[in-house]
């Protein structure tokens, strides 16, 4: 067990920090938004991240990756979060590649994972349906087995980076009721296949997602990812890992927002003094710091648990997501309040942090959802 980074990890993190600081200030996100960029991120920068090995971190060496762990990945995600880097690490790597890695056949892994690792393939996982809230196994999209394959019918929403993806992974039900964990299968889908309709969604945090409509889409039998009807378990585990990754990103964003707010408290003057000298603000600033430190421990605990294959992994992931969700929202809201009027303007960056914080909070389960899940896992 390790909750402290070793020298290699610290070095890795410092390199990531330098890269993000140099290549991706928050102003880049603003430019992408204002220019109406279709992808919402830069493919050129994605390629350079691949040169640094970021997309390879959690991909096993057998599939062209580095075979490192979640503590290593968290180093990168935290630094990306610090400057709200929008490149699709969560969607392509943590959702897409993980679905292939945990659910795919040997052949599918060999075909897809090396291309993700080298940065030449973008993936998106289409699992979420309107009204499903945080239940990744709620699935009304149907898959009918035919002579030579399957016919897919249904609708997915909030497919993160779905417009930009080279390949989609879609969950669809072969049997059972809408909420059943059993009976769901995952399919690899070409976004250009007949009957596939993708339309763009812009989310509050200036990221991109897609609505995916499937109207009698024919896919070959080989498009089935892994075993028929068993994707519920795979999806749960994929979402868990993505949740841990998202928490690491949130940890970075919280630090970015806190640093910005603290800086303001130390420079803004009213009544002839720095506003950071007011005890009413000091104590609230420390509250943010306390939440940040507790969040850091929770993120490290969750990532370490995944790396160790601990039986407490799911619990620790819920601890991390609940803590990070509450902390991120606190820091976002306090950030705006402490900035005062300027914090309400689009011109100031603190608003980008607040929007991303809420988007992360409401992705993969908010604090209340994870408290409920934790209680269930603990048997009460």
């Amino acid at each position, binding site marked *: 067990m390790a909750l402290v980074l070793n020298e290699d990890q610290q070095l890795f993190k410092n390199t990531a920090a330098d890269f993000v600081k140099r290549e991706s200030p928050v102003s880049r996100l603003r430019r992408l938004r204002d220019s109406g960029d279709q992808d919402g991120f830069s493919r050129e920068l994605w390629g350079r991240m691949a040169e640094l090995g970021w997309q390879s971190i959690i991909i096993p060496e057998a599939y062209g990756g580095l075979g490192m762990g979640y503590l290593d990945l968290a180093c990168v995600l935290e630094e990306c979060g610090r400057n709200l880097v929008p490149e699709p690490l969560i969607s392509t790597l943590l959702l897409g590649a993980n679905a292939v890695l945990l659910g795919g056949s040997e052949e599918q892994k060999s075909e897809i994972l090396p291309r993700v690792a080298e940065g030449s393939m973008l993936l998106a996982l289409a699992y979420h349906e309107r009204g499903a809230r945080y239940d990744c196994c709620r699935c009304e999209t149907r898959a009918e087995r035919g002579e030579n394959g399957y016919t897919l019918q249904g609708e997915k929403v909030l497919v993160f980076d779905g417009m930009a993806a080279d390949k989609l992974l879609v969950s669809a039900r072969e049997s059972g009721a809408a909420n059943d964990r059993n009976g769901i299968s995952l399919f690899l889908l070409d976004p250009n296949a007949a009957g596939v309709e993708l339309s763009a969604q812009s989310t509050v945090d200036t990221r991109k997602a897609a609505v995916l409509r499937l109207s009698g889409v024919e896919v070959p039998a080989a498009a089935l990812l892994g075993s028929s009807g068993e994707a519920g378990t795979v999806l749960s585990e994929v979402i868990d890992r993505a949740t841990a990754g998202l928490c690491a990103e949130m940890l970075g964003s919280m630090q970015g927002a806190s640093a910005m707010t603290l800086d303001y408290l130390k420079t803004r003057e009213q009544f002839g003094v720095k506003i950071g000298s007011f005890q009413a603000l000091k104590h609230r600033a420390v509250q943010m710091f306390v939440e940040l430190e507790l969040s850091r421990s929770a993120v490290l605990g969750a990532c370490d648990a995944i790396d160790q294959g601990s039986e407490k992994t799911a619990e620790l992931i819920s601890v991390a997501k609940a803590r990070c969700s509450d902390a991120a929202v606190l820091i976002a809201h306090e950030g705006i309040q402490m900035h005062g009027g300027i914090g309400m303007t689009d011109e100031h960056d603190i608003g980008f942090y607040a929007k991303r914080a809420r988007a992360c909070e409401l992705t993969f389960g908010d604090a209340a959802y994870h408290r*409920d899940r934790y209680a269930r896992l603990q048997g009460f």
Partner: protein
Amino acid sequence: MGELEEFRKETEAWLDANCPPSMRWSETPGTNPALNDDLAWGGRKATYPNPEVKQWLDLMAEKGWTAPTWPQAYGGGGLSKAEAKILSEEMRRLRIKPPLVGFGLTMIGPLLLEYGSEEQKLRFLNEVCRGEIRWCQGYSEPDAGSDLASLRTRAILDGDEWVVNGQKVWTSYADLSDWMFCLVRTDPDVRKQEGITFLLFDMESPGVSVKPIELISGYSPFCETFLEDVRVPKDQVVGGVNNGWTMAKALLGHERSMISEAFHEREESNQLVDLADKYIGRDVHGRLADATIRDRIAQLTMNKACLDLTLRRSKEAAKQGQQPGPESSIFKYYATELNKDRTALALNVLGPQALGWEGDGFDAAELQATRSWLRARGNSIEGGTSEVQLNIIAKRVLGLPD
């Protein structure tokens, strides 16, 4: 490695062979008495209703294992850090209670080791290790609480003795203690932190009188201590005249780490869930039947998990030789607030059965829960209030302006 393994074997064998049965924690969760029962606090006024408590203290003191890492010349065990860790691991594994507790071991002892004269070390540390002296702390005064440095108890040098006049308050167990370590004002004409001296004196000195304070919980662990022309020999100053504030800060560090450690050490089953099972029960899905209480228990348990992970992170960093990180500043604050939340929530779980103060119709655990809620209110006041902790973090860690 071989030597350490040898040490572990010998230690385990000795502990198992020598520790009396009543000095081991029960293996059934929830049946262990409160921490204070069957623990030796030592001192001249100590009584030992259970003779095995004294027997265990003497056996361990003879080996120097009441203070395992202190030098043998001062009554300690002279163990290396690695050996001391093995000893504490084996004690935990065999569920053995500590042979001696109190301020001598955790506060004044470490301070004397660092700042005391050789004579003071030889004299006091040996007595501490053998459990022959119990200490109390004379810091707070009626007008010096959070603003401790404004203390007014005055000491004036008269020949070879200090003559002390003033009043101390919140002196834990002053009525049971033999000696006090105390902050007194020796120079009223300089900046308030610079005129304070750290003094030791015998509680039986003429002019010392003690009056217990009854708390809202009904207990009286604290006292008021009145000092009237108390004469203290000159050589009972620690760390030099007018250097008391440095001593106080060093000691407060020990106190804060002790308070937060105390919360960490209790690795137990989720007592709130056990309580809720008894007083609330489950619904048809096996969930606690009160959804709001269930959510609050989950939140509290998860908060505790975050604190434990942070303590672990801090310990691992220390093991790697890193300085304590900024996270260590939150322990006292967060651990005490959490304990307040926990004891407060317990009453909601108990419901009307938490109304009891004494008399018929309430069992011991119910009465204890109510008292614990009251006692825990003080957690965020003693040893530096939560507000003072937040001020310190704002200044030292976040660098916010005065």
